């Protein structure tokens, strides 16, 4: 029943709404996509449209030891963050969703806190801690910090999945002889798998895109990709960043497409 109440609105008013709506969407979209043609420009300076097509910025990215090192650090950290944050988040979401206890709201608030606390505060806290226990400039330290930042997203997404899940199914499996863990793995987990995939993906992206914490705790050889990009942007703008950004935009597009496909499938 879309647009029922809009009937009778003068055409010029609808046009006005279209213009504003599309205008704001362009404001959101154009800056993201303008990077892509720029990354194929041969010029050192920003030109749009680019005069000559060239892959020189991609070459300079893939041939740079520093950028490759940083990319490798980021990919490893993001991968391990996903591996750690997803199960921890699922366990937390499951425990918090199916327990009646007066401590639950407090526990939930604690787990979700790193999402609410401004990231700069998390960053100085982590830096303060790591400087004392020698975890600055380590992959392990980055993974732990990024896991803490990713857990809230996993918990929220998986909780939403679990709330839609009919617990009677798990109970049925248990009445047929499965223990709670077996019932969870064979019945519950498959039926919330979309939430789990989404959560894992977000954990990966959270780590991959994270800048502020990495700024404090990763340097030199252990600098993440975004940390190096940030430093480069602050000092002098190198068009290689356009090439890297294009690759990161492609990652985002994959995520959005994944989400849209998931959302358009009928919910059970």
């Amino acid at each position, binding site marked *: *029943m*879309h*647009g*029922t*109440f*809009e*009937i*009778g*609105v003068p055409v010029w008013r609808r046009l006005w*709404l279209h213009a*504003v*709506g599309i205008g*704001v*969407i362009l404001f*959101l*979209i154009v*800056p*993201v996509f303008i990077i892509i043609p720029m990354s194929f420009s041969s010029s050192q*300076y*920003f*030109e749009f449209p680019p005069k000559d097509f060239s892959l020189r910025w991609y070459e300079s990215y893939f041939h740079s030891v520093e950028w490759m090192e940083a990319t490798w650090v980021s990919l490893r950290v993001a991968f391990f963050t996903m591996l750690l944050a997803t199960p*921890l988040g699922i*366990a*937390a979401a*499951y*425990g*918090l969703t199916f*327990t*009646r206890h007066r401590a639950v709201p407090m*526990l939930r608030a604690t*787990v979700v806190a*790193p999402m*609410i*606390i401004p990231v*700069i*505060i998390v960053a*100085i*806290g*982590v*830096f*303060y*801690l790591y400087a004392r226990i020698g975890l600055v400039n380590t992959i392990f330290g980055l993974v732990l910090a990024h*896991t803490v930042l990713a*857990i809230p997203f996993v*918990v929220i997404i998986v909780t939403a999945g679990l709330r839609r899940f009919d617990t009677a199914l798990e109970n049925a499996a248990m009445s047929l002889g499965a223990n709670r863990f077996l019932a969870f793995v064979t019945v519950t987990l498959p039926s919330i798998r979309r939430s789990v995939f989404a959560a894992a993906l977000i954990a990966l992206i959270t780590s991959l*895109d994270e800048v*502020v914490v990495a700024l404090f705790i990763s340097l030199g050889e252990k600098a993440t990709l*975004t940390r190096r*990009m*940030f430093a480069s*942007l*602050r000092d002098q*703008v190198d068009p290689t960043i*356009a090439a890297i*950004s294009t690759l990161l935009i492609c990652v*985002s*597009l994959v*995520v*959005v497409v994944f*989400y849209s496909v998931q959302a358009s499938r009928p919910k059970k």
Partner: protein
Amino acid sequence: MAAGTNIALLEASERAERRRFLALPMPALLLTAVICIVPVGILFWVSFVGPEGFTLENYTRILENPGYLKILRTTFSISITITILAILLGFPLAYYISTLPDRAAAICLGLVLVPFWTSLLVRTYAWLVLLQRQGLINDFFLWLGVIDEPMRLAYNRFGTTIGMLHIVLPFFVLPMFAAIKSLDRDWLRAAANLGASPVRAFWTVLVPLTIPGLVAGALLVFVYSLGFYVTPEILGGGRVTMVAMKVQQNATIYADWGAASSLALILLIITLAIFFGIERVLRRQRGGGN
């Protein structure tokens, strides 16, 4: 008697199960506490400790030092500007998407999600490319002949505001869209049946009913803006200092933990107060919706 024992056994096993359930969130909780909550707590403690024990020195400095006051003023005024702009751009967009047929609405939401999922750093970089002296916007206006020399768009407050607005806008549009969409359309039909013009129905029925969603979205944008670091650091070009940037400077450049953490604590208290406010608004909305 046997029934009584059975009940007792069942209750005992239920209690054991409950304990097992409560153990499940513990690894995540423990990690979060050790890596995030406890160090932040210790830092806040540090902000009250001087060479001679307890001190409020770090806080009186913030209140007395005009430099700090200027940073707080800048942070608040940029955040308020962004919140107002997010409402002015985001509300029409959310409303617009809600009037579209399903397929078009899904595409538009997808387009809003693309920047939402794109790295904040990439988007900040994009605005640098657009706004800088030899950037695309200046080139375009020079080519049009509207201006004779490039305008100062980046490396100042203007650039910072635009860049941050672009980043926070989806945070306003998505919940706003959900709020408008969940609205009972019968109210609008009723208004139309009672003779209200569509414009009047919009302003007297739709807008008031979506105000809780609007307030919650606006507060979210505001609180998110307060803590910004990356975008003002790059697009501000050293001319804009926001609270988070000062926290970073105090911690890494001056290694002054007391100064860094006192400012961080103020930021955190404001943030938590606003989140508390958001929850109140949303709870009232849910309660009022029935």
